[in-house]
């Protein structure tokens, strides 16, 4: 078993784990960073969303070895206005999906800034348009909320985006 160096929230860690360990399990079970949640473990809910070099990914389908040279950011490493906006707008109830929602929203705002279109974006000329609620809902569709706090989530993100 080879030692794996992972970089999480600005710190390097050496892990003695076999290649079948997902990034999600490496974070939760081996580094004690339990802020990132496991909902489905199959890419279907978004609870495990973290940032890899600022890009949002599902840590449950990521093998830790594949992300060894990437800068991983989890909810424990985030200090962003979106967090207070979630509190102000009741963007959660039980909170289980929230760390994934926050990481996803931060990744989403960066994508939008870079001109990444979504399934509801029009022609390329329509770029630079503001994030409408419809855009936010589509771009955040990879994050489910079993409590149905979607209204608050969309409001919170909208407030920070605009």
């Amino acid at each position, binding site marked *: 078993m080879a030692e794996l160096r992972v970089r999480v929230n600005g710190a390097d860690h050496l892990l003695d784990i*076999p*290649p*079948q360990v*997902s990034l999600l399990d490496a974070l939760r079970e081996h580094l004690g960073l339990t802020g990132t949640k496991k909902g489905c*473990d*199959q*890419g279907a809910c*978004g609870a495990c*969303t973290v940032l890899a070099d600022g*890009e*949002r*990914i*599902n840590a449950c*389908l*990521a*093998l830790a*070895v*594949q992300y060894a040279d990437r800068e991983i950011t989890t909810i424990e490493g985030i200090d962003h206005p979106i967090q207070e906006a979630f509190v102000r707008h009741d963007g959660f109830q039980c909170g289980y999906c929230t760390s994934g929602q926050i990481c*996803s929203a931060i*990744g*989403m705002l960066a*994508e939008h800034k*870079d*001109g*990444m*279109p*979504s*399934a509801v*974006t029009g022609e*390329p000329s329509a770029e630079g348009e503001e994030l409408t609620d419809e855009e936010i*809902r*589509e*771009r955040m*569709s*990879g*994050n489910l909320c079993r409590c149905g706090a979607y209204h608050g989530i969309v409001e919170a993100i909208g407030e920070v985006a605009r």
Partner: protein
Amino acid sequence: MRAFSYVSAPDVATAVRAVSETPNAKFLGGGTNLVDLMRENIEHPDVLVDVSRLPLNGVEELPDGGLRIGATVRNSALAAHPLVRTRYPVVSQAVLNGASAQLRNMATVGGNLLQRTRCLYFYDTASPCNKREPGSGCAALGGFTRDAGILGVSERCVATHPSDLCVALVALGAVVEVESTRGTRRIPLTDLHRLPADTPQRETVLERDELITAVELPPVPAAANSRYRKVRDRASYAFALVSVAAALRLDGDTITEARLALGGIAPKPWRANEAEHVLTGARATEETFDRAAAAELDRAQAVGDNAFKIELTRRTIVATLRELTHEGSRP
């Protein structure tokens, strides 16, 4: 998940040799399908050869005006590429209508082409499934068939191919470039996936050790006026019940070039040749669109209770063509 060893390949030659020399080795792209299938104990390779960081992540313009898309380009990067969005909007739209932003950031083009069916019984190791365990039977027959196909399926397997991207690519006549220790070959995407017939476990014409290195799109004038329309059980983040990729070029109200492909209804991305034949040279009217859809769906057959998909496909084809006619005849 069963134990396996992992190798990251620095170049194409090493990747291809590693899989060729190791009996139960597989290529690993973004892992969004393979890791899931390994965790469910449906796939169990002994060695994963990671090809996701090979230097095949460019989108380049070809001298003839076509586009060469590297196999490790992430789905999100493909959808955002300016040349893809302006010349082949249907490709960008198809990608953006699939999976979620997180998954698109991880998934590669090569992996997307080779993703496996989402048939519920294929995923349920307690059920018989000819694809997972040849000869064991097909639990979908007589079971839940909402996601089953209506064209090209067999008595051994009625599963559908789940990729959205492939539907757009097949409509445009994409060609897949493949590399192995035996050299390079080019395969039209229409010929990459096989129909199930008696061997649903054999899904493509690729050998185990053949690496997809690129997908090439020829210049398609009609593609500038193209669209992907996907019908599913919720507005986003769900596989297609039915999808349509279409491109139309019009001269007045005459269709001079038509491209049409269907998703969610067949074991492979389904190029609608019969419909294209009806459309090409005809007037762009509701009557023509109806005839085109009828010609393609002539051989469609319901499996269990999914007869609604035949009508849904017909309507989605007509609606997409109608939309493109309005857009294509704008000055």
